[in-house]
C-alpha cells in the first residue's frame, strides 16, 4: 500500500428509522430477541459440551476443537460484521445469518460424524458472529427519540441476561433431552427471529457493493482467535509448554496476532477493523480493557457451576438456576446505575467503582461460603447480592464503549464491546484453570500431610470405615478441590478490583452549561 493513500473503512448505514405502532414494537422485539439468541447460544452449547463429546465419540483432545473452531469463527466474524453490514445491508445480513445459524444448528443436532460436526460448528460460529452488531444497530436505530435515553441500560441488561439465561437453558436441555438437543432452542429461536425481521424490517439501508473483501485480514483474524481459544482450552490440560501442540498454538498466536495488526494498520487499503480508533477514542480503550477484566471475572460462573456440581452434587439445571437468580438483581442494578449517572448524583467512574467494590465483596462472600457441606440455598442471597453490583458495574461500561463513539463508528464500537468480554474470558479460562489445578494439588498435599491416625477425627473415620484409605483419600481430594474453587473465587475478587485504577483513565468531562437549542 502506498503510505500516502488513506485507508478506506466500511461505514454501515446508521440512519434512524423508528416505525410507529405495532410494527415498531415488533422490530424492537426482534432486535432484542436476536441479541438474546446470540448471547444465549454460546453459553448453551458450552454447558452441553460433555454430552456433545460423547455423541461424536470425540477424545478429550478432539472435544476441545468443538469449542475452538466455533469461537474462532464467532469472534472473527463479530469484528467482521460491521463490514458485512455495510456491504450487503443490515436486513439481508441479519436474515441470512439467523437462517444460516438455524440450519447449521439443525444439521448439528442430527450429526454424529466428528469432522462434519467441526465443519458445521465453524460455519455456525461465523453465522452467529454476524448477528449481534446488526441486531444492536437495529435496536438503536428503531427507537423513538424519547426512548433513546434508555437504550444503553436496556442493551446492557439484555446482553447480561442472555449469557446468564443460556447457562440454565443449556443445562436444562442437556439434562432432560441429551446433548444434541442443546442446538434445538437456538435453531427455533433464530428461525423465529429471522421470520420476524424478514416481515417487519424494511431493507432501506444502502448496501455498498463497491467494498472490497479483506480476505487476508479475515484469515489472520480467524487464526488469531482460533489460537487464543485453543491455548485457553488446552493450555492447562496439556501442561502448557511441555506439549508440542501448545508450543505450536503459541507460535501461531505469536505470528498471527502481530500479522493481523500490521496488515490492518499498514498494509491493506481497505481493512475491516480500524485499530486506530483505540488511539482516537480513549473511552473505547478504557472501556474495552475494563470489559476484558470483567470478561475474565465471567469465568467465575464456570468455577461456581463446577463447584456446585462437583462438591454439592447439583445438576446442570439446578446450578444454572442458581446463576439465573442474578437476573432479578441485574434488573435493579442496571437501572440504578443508569439513574445515578443520568441524574448527576454520581460521576460515571464512581458508579463503576461502587459496582466493582460490591462485586468484589460478593465474590469474596462466595469464596467464604464454598465448602463441601454448604447448603445450595445459601447461594441464592449471594447471587442476588452479586448480581446487583455486577449489574451496576456493567451499565456504565456499555455507555463508555458504545455511547462515547461518534455515530459513524457505532457499529465498530458495538463489535469491540461484544468482543472484549470473551477475550477476557479466554484469558481467564487458560489462566484460572492452571491456578485451579495448582491450588488443588497444593491443598491436597497440605491435607495429605495433616491426615494421620494421631488426629482424633481421622482415627474415628478409619475405625468407622474399617480402615478404608481410599475413602479417606477421596474426602481429602474433594476437600482440596473445594478449597481450590474457593481460593480461585477469592482471586476473582482481586481481579475485579483491578478495574478501579483503570476507570480513572476514562475521559469524563464536568457537567457544563446546558446545550443550546437548535
Amino acid at each position, binding site marked *: 500500500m502506498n503510505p500516502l493513500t488513506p485507508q478506506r473503512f466500511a461505514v454501515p448505514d446508521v*440512519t434512524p428509522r423508528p416505525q*410507529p405502532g405495532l410494527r415498531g414494537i415488533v422490530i424492537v422485539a426482534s432486535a432484542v430477541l436476536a441479541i438474546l439468541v446470540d448471547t444465549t447460544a454460546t453459553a448453551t452449547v458450552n454447558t452441553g459440551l460433555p454430552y456433545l463429546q460423547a455423541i461424536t465419540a470425540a477424545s478429550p483432545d478432539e472435544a476441545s476443537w468443538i469449542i475452538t473452531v466455533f469461537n474462532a469463527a464467532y469472534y472473527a466474524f463479530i469484528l467482521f460484521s460491521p463490514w458485512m453490514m455495510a456491504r450487503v445491508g443490515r436486513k439481508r445480513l441479519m436474515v441470512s445469518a439467523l437462517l444460516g445459524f438455524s440450519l447449521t444448528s439443525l444439521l448439528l443436532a442430527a450429526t454424529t460424524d466428528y469432522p462434519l460436526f467441526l465443519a458445521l460448528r465453524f460455519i455456525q460460529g461465523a453465522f452467529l458472529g454476524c448477528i449481534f452488531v446488526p441486531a444492536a444497530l437495529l435496536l*438503536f436505530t428503531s427507537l423513538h*427519540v*424519547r426512548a433513546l435515553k434508555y437504550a444503553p441500560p436496556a442493551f446492557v441488561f439484555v446482553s447480561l441476561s442472555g449469557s446468564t439465561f443460556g447457562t440454565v437453558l443449556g443445562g436444562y436441555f442437556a439434562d432432560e433431552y441429551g446433548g444434541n438437543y442443546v442446538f434445538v432452542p437456538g435453531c427455533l429461536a433464530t428461525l423465529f427471529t429471522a421470520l420476524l425481521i424478514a416481515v417487519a424490517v424494511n431493507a432501506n439501508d444502502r448496501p455498498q457493493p463497491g467494498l472490497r473483501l479483506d480476505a487476508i485480514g479475515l484469515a489472520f483474524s480467524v487464526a488469531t482467535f482460533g489460537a487464543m481459544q485453543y491455548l485457553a482450552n488446552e493450555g492447562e490440560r496439556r501442561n502448557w509448554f511441555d506439549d508440542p501442540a501448545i508450543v505450536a498454538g503459541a507460535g501461531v498466536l505469536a505470528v498471527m496476532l502481530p500479522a493481523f495488526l500490521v496488515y490492518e494498520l499498514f498494509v491493506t487499503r481497505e481493512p475491516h477493523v480500524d485499530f486506530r480508533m483505540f488511539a482516537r477514542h480513549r473511552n473505547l480503550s478504557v472501556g474495552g480493557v475494563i470489559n476484558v477484566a470483567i470478561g475474565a471475572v465471567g469465568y467465575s460462573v464456570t468455577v461456581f457451576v463446577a463447584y456446585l456440581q462437583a462438591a454439592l452434587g447439583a445438576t446442570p439445571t439446578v446450578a444454572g438456576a442458581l446463576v439465573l437468580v442474578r437476573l432479578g438483581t441485574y434488573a435493579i442494578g442496571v437501572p440504578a446505575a443508569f439513574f445515578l449517572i443520568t441524574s448527576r448524583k454520581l460521576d460515571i467512574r464512581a458508579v463503576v467503582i461502587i459496582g466493582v467494590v460490591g462485586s468484589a465483596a460478593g465474590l469474596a462472600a462466595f469464596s467464604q461460603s464454598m465448602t463441601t457441606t454448604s447448603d445450595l440455598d445459601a447461594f441464592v442471597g449471594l447471587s442476588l447480592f452479586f448480581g446487583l453490583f455486577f449489574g451496576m458495574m456493567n451499565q456504565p461500561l456499555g455507555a463508555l464503549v458504545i455511547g462515547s463513539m461518534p455515530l459513524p463508528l457505532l457499529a465498530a464500537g458495538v463489535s469491540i464491546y461484544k468482543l472484549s468480554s470473551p477475550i477476557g474470558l479466554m484469558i481467564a479460562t487458560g489462566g484460572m484453570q492452571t491456578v485451579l489445578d495448582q491450588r488443588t494439588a497444593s491443598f491436597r498435599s497440605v491435607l495429605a500431610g495433616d491426615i494421620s491416625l494421631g488426629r482424633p477425627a481421622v482415627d474415628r473415620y478409619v475405625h468407622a470405615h474399617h480402615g478404608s484409605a481410599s475413602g479417606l483419600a477421596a474426602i481429602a481430594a474433594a476437600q482440596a478441590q473445594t478449597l481450590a474453587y474457593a481460593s480461585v473465587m477469592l482471586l476473582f475478587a482481586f481481579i475485579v478490583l483491578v478495574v478501579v485504577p483503570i476507570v480513572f483513565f476514562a475521559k469524563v468531562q464536568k457537567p457544563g452549561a446546558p446545550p*443550546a437549542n437548535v
Partner: protein
Amino acid sequence: MFERIVAIVDGSPTSHYAIGASITIAREDADELTFCITVDPELSADGVGATCFAELAMLLSRQMLDEALQRAHTSGVPHATGRILQDAPARGVVSFAQAQGAGLIVLGLAPRIGILRPFIRSLAEEVLRETTIPLCVVRRPARGRLNRRILVPIVDDDLSQLGVTYAVSLAQNFRSSLLFCTVEDAAGERSALSALNRAKAEAAAAGVAADELLLPKGGGISDAIVRNADVHACDSIVMASHVREGLPRLIEGSVTEAVIYSSDVPVVIVRAPPPSADRVANRM
C-alpha cells in the same frame, strides 16, 4: 387569534395527527407555526457516555422536523419553522411557547394503559400544569375542518365561564357554531338551564350561532360529552380544566382528562391562572 402556534412533534402516530391539526388551524388563523421536538438534555450532556445516542436523537429530530415542515409547506403554510429543544418535554415546550408568545400549543396524545392512568401524568397534563396557554390535544386524525361546530361542556361555575368566553372568541374568529352542553346536577334543572342561558347569551352578544343540550343525570359525564360530540357532528371540543393535583386528582379524577383520552375529535383545553398568580394579583 392565535398569532403563533407551537406543535409538539415526537414521531408517534398521534404526533402526526397533531401536525395535521396544527397545519389546518395555522392555514386559517396563524402568522407562524413552529414545530418543536424535545431531546433529553442528558443525552447530549458530557459524562454520561451517550454521544452516539445524542447524535442519533438529533438526526432523528431533524428528520421528523423536515417531514413536518414539508407537510406544512405543501399544505400552504409558508411560515412554518422547526426547533429542537434540549430540555424536559413539558418544560421545554412551555418555556419556548411562552417566549414566542404562542396562542396555542398542539400535541398528540399517546395511548396509555388504563390502570396506570391515575399514577402517571401525560405530556398534556404536564404542559397544562406549567402554563395557561390553551392546549389542543389530538388523539385521532382530524376530520375536515376543526372549528366548524364546537362542543362546549359547561357547568354553573367560574371555570366554565372561562371556557365559554374562549369558545365564543374561537367561534367568532373561525365563524363556527357552538353547542353548549351541561348535565342536570344536584341543584336541579334550573341551575343547569341558567348556565346554558348565560352561555348562549354571551354567544349571541358576539354574533355566534349557538345551540344547547341538556344531558340527563346518571352515567359517565365524560362518556356523554364524547358521545354527543359524535352524535351532533362536532369537530372539536373546548373545555376548561381545574388541573387537579395530588390526592384530589387520584380520588376525583378529571373529566377533562377522561375526555381527552376517549375523544375522537381534538380537545382544546383552557385553564385559569394558578391560584398563586391570583393571590399575587390581589395583593397588588
